[in-house]
């Protein structure tokens, strides 16, 4: 922990995002610093004088703040143990621990910075070309490369709690982007009473109005500054009850069905919108020139954000590189913030008349028709080299100026990735040098600068039309006339705007140096792209894959335009023919925790759950259910069932109720057994197979009436059996009602030599073997509770499975325990039941069978009635029967004292050829025993085979019959 005395004071600042009355202390690389409420990590560090924020991915070049909007990778830091946090948008909080990454010993002096000089040994795609032979070479080099390249390190010790969450929202209209267009669209949609969600990635609404403060002439709110217009619109939006505004929320993907993924803090919000309006605006992009990634080279909007949001002075002596009036406004901003503006390098030819008025700034020399060719300096900007764009101009030789800040305010790129994802038609327009949105799919609209049109009046009109068209689609538009006239007006304006001259500044300025960075994320240089194109990777898509340009954390936001420009020039192709790389979600880095959300484990409890807990049962999860594993002593539970009487909660069994005239034919079709001939009052064990003959489930079928059946399924298969039954019923259009009554019915199995004595104390039903024999069922009262009783012998003793409405669970449980006291009754858990049933060789589907097991392998051939009329699985089983059997499920007893575990391998000639599916110690046999799958040639009656128990080979002998009571006298008794 750092010491407080190192605290660096920062001066009071004036910014519209920060509150200087509330100080926030945080540590950076072990030293304490101070920021203010509203600061981001980066703005506070910048205010404290930090200029290098990271080291680049490959060459470890120093990098400083560039975009201040979370779009570039140059400010990635480790915050509170979480790596790769974009510090320029990470809100500062009290006690935050910030650390630099990918540099040693410090960002200022990074020993790996020497790699920068080895650039010529690291050509594009070097790992496809070098370190290939001998193979060992890569093994030696890889750890070094991994250590030197890369970003932050994942902290595996960091514990995550419930901080991640998913949320689901529904709305009429989702509007993405709360700038001028987004706010205008929202205001229009409010008028039609639409239900709206407005998603804004900044902490407040307003978009560029909050930092490009001068240039606004908003016809509807005349005479107001940009800030005031933003305030007015935001107030209308926030005060409306039909709008829910999400700030600090970034849309990360728009999927089919207008399903919008939004990340807000640690939450992933999934919005299902009937209509989506995309007003994500545009963002400035850097130019490619010599040393273009030097700290001190910043985008114009970044500088404005530092000034207006955070009240930080971006530098002392600035040069503005621009191609539009926006840059001149920036120069004004800088001057007002006390920064000396040395010069403006304007890419445009000198205009005859100044239309806008912003250009009249006599103190700042403007160099027309020029651009930047190089940034001078080693670790920070110390000067700039300006060259003429055209030969004829007055500045022939490069002009060197001293400065410590270079503002790039030239081209912007529409933030149209979401539109690309929807499949909108976007075409590159040569006249405006912008990708223009031509067409959007149904239910998706675009408005504002995202459409490639940079004209405030047009953008406002677009937003209104988009909002009204959305309302029209929703059927809530009342002002149809207004929509028509707006559309007319929009078309007129679009035509006039096309005739205005535009100047596009080339994305790349010619230069001489090697270090002309195209992709900040992956350190891809201009020469890398040129070389890749020379090697034949001429298509932008494969150029991307080969060089990794646009593949870094920024997903091409900073480099895609430059890459396309370079690709077009190097291949001699027209830029409109190059296309773009595919935009895929997520649009920005999202931590896996956000995508995973919080961990919810659904758990079901039986009606008697609290009784088990009170009895001190050790609970285990079986499927979605919590079941008692044992109540303390498995062996005494086992003994109670075999010698006296035991009771087990079997409420987890799946229970389906089938009613209808065609219930019997349906069951006859679903089970491989014969069911139709089952008499009322009788129960039968049945097996369900898939069409190909794989065992899906087993259970009991009880006929309660001619047209009424009660079916039980395996605990874990309830849902799939319900849908399986319903599908067969639906596909044949049977008249059967299938109801899943699993949760509505509780069940216990009462078993043991004294089971009849216990039950007869509670129930008036005649339980004698003559009336209520094995595999019979009777409905009647048990302790006054209406119940269905079945005589089933899963554990191999006289026993009844009692099904009853679950609300009586605890009462019935108590009644049975009480009635059984005199007979020494014990509740038994899943573990005792497993041993008891294994001694009877009763299989558990899913434990002793798998996704390929058929009845012929699992000793269930007796159940398959191929001769009966068509049933599900008949075709498959008929085929399987004709083929030689490959595996067989056999019972075995160990010949020595070992007890195998479930899953232990069966060994033949040193090779694993089979596996144990269930194995335990049998108190009855006095040995380890169980069930195993053997290849058919090993499954010979009473022969030996080898199981690897704890890695040591042990002999087992095959036992054909059940291990306990093979004649079944006890369960029939």
């Amino acid at each position, binding site marked *: 922990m750092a010491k407080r005395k190192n605290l660096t004071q920062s001066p009071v600042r004036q910014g519209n995002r920060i509150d200087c009355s509330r100080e926030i202390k945080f540590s950076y690389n072990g030293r304490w610093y101070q920021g203010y409420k509203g600061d981001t990590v980066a703005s506070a560090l910048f205010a404290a004088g930090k200029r290098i924020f990271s080291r680049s991915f490959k060459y470890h070049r120093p990098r400083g703040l560039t975009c201040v909007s979370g779009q570039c990778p140059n400010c990635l830091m480790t915050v509170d143990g979480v790596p790769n946090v974009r510090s320029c948008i990470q809100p500062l909080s009290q006690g935050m621990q910030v650390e630099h990454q990918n540099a040693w010993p410090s960002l200022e002096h990074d020993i790996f910075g020497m790699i920068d000089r080895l650039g010529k040994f690291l050509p594009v795609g070097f790992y496809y070309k070098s370190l290939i032979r001998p193979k060992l070479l890569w093994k030696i080099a890889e750890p070094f490369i991994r250590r030197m390249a890369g970003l932050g390190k994942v902290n595996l010790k960091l514990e995550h709690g419930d901080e991640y969450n998913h949320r689901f929202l529904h709305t009429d209209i989702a509007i993405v982007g709360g700038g001028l267009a987004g706010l205008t669209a929202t205001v229009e949609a409010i008028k039609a009473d639409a239900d709206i969600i407005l998603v804004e990635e900044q902490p407040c609404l307003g978009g560029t109005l909050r930092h490009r403060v001068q240039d606004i002439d908003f016809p509807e709110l005349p005479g107001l500054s940009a800030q005031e217009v933003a305030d007015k619109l935001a107030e209308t939006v926030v005060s409306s009850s039909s709008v829910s505004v999400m700030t600090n929320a970034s849309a990360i993907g728009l999927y089919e069905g207008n399903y919008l993924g939004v990340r807000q803090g640690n939450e992933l919000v999934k919005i299902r919108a009937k209509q989506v309006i995309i007003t994500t605006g545009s963002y400035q992009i850097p130019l490619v020139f010599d040393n273009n990634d030097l700290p001190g080279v910043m985008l114009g909007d970044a500088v404005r954000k530092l000034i207006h949001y955070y009240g930080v002075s971006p530098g002392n002596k600035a040069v503005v590189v621009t191609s539009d009036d926006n840059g001149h406004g920036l120069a004004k901003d800088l001057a007002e913030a006390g920064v000396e503006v040395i010069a403006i390098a304007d890419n445009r030819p000198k205009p005859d008349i100044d239309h806008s008025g912003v250009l009249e700034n006599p103190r700042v020399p403007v160099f027309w028709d020029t651009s930047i060719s190089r940034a001078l300096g080693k670790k920070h900007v110390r000067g700039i080299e300006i060259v003429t764009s055209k030969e004829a101009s007055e500045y022939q030789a490069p002009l060197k100026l001293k400065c410590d800040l270079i503002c790039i305010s030239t081209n912007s790129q529409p933030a149209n990735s979401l539109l690309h994802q929807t499949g909108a038609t976007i075409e590159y327009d040569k006249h405006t040098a912008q990708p223009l949105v031509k067409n959007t799919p149904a239910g998706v609209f675009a408005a504002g600068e995202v459409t490639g049109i940079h004209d405030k009046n047009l953008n406002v009109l677009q937003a209104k039309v988009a909002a009204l068209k959305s309302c029209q689609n929703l059927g809530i538009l009342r002002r149809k006339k207004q929509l028509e006239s707006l559309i007319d007006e929009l078309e007129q304006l679009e035509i006039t705007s096309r005739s205005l001259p535009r100047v596009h500044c080339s994305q790349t300025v010619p230069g001489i140096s090697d270090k002309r960075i195209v992709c900040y994320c992956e350190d891809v240089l201009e020469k890398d792209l040129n070389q890749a194109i020379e090697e034949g990777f001429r298509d932008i898509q494969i150029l991307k894959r080969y060089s990794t340009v646009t593949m870094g954390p920024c997903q091409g936001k900073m480099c895609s335009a430059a890459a396309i420009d370079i690709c077009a020039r190097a291949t001699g192709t027209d830029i409109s023919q190059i296309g773009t790389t595919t935009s895929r979600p997520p649009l920005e880095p999202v931590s896996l925790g956000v995508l995973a959300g919080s961990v919810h484990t659904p758990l079901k409890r039986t009606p008697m759950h609290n009784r088990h807990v009170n009895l001190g049962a050790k609970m285990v999860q079986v499927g979605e259910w919590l079941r008692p594993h044992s109540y303390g002593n498995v062996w005494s539970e086992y003994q109670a069932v075999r010698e006296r009487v035991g009771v087990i909660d079997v409420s987890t069994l799946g229970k389906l109720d089938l009613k209808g005239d065609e219930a019997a034919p349906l069951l006859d079709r679903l089970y491989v057994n014969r069911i139709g001939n089952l008499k009322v009052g009788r129960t039968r064990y049945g097996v369900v197979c898939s069409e190909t003959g794989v065992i899906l489930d087993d259970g009991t079928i009880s006929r309660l009436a001619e047209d009424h059946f009660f079916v039980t399924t395996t605990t874990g298969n309830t849902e799939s059996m319900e849908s399986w039954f319903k599908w067969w019923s*639906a596909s044949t259009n049977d008249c059967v009602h299938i109801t899943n009554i699993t949760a509505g019915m509780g069940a216990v199995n009462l078993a043991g030599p004294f089971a009849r004595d216990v039950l007869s104390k509670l129930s008036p039903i005649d339980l004698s073997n003559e009336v209520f024999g094995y595999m019979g069922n009777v409905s009647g009262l048990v302790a006054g509770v209406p119940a269905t009783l079945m005589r089933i012998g899963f554990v191999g003793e006289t026993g009844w499975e009692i099904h009853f409405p679950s609300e009586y669970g605890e009462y019935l449980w108590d009644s049975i325990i009480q009635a059984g006291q005199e007979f020494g009754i014990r509740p038994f858990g899943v573990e005792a039941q497993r041993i008891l049933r294994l001694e009877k060789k009763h299989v558990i589907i899913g434990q002793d069978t798998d996704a390929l097991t058929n009845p012929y392998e699992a000793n269930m051939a007796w159940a398959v009635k191929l001769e009966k009329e068509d049933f599900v699985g008949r075709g498959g089983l008929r085929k399987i029967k004709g083929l030689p059997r490959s595996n067989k499920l056999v019972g075995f007893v160990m010949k020595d004292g070992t007890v195998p575990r479930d899953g232990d391998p069966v060994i033949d000639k040193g090779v694993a050829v089979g596996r144990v599916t269930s194995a335990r110690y049998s108190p009855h046999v006095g040995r380890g025993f169980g069930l195993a799958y053997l290849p058919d040639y090993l499954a010979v009656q009473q022969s030996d085979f080898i199981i690897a128990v704890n890695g040591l080979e042990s002999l087992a002998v095959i036992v054909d019959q059940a291990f306990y009571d093979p004649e079944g006298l006890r369960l029939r008794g």
Partner: protein
Amino acid sequence: MTYLISCPGCGDRGVDDYRYGGSVLKRPGYNDDPELWDSYFYLRVNRAGMEKEWWYHRMGCKQWFIAERDSTTNQVHVTYWPGENK
């Protein structure tokens, strides 16, 4: 896979609410050729375009219905209960 399907009973729901049950197939008859059964088990047309499919509303009414879906666009044109010929 985030498109909407309209359950004939419950209305529009996200595709996650449902279980896909495969294309509507004709089941061979009791005495049909084993080859016909084999193709019924394993061979699927996997058509690009409109397909009649089974869908199960597992998170809702738990009923099967038939949807006519364009597998190239995921647009579900119509849904109905089995037996309701549309």
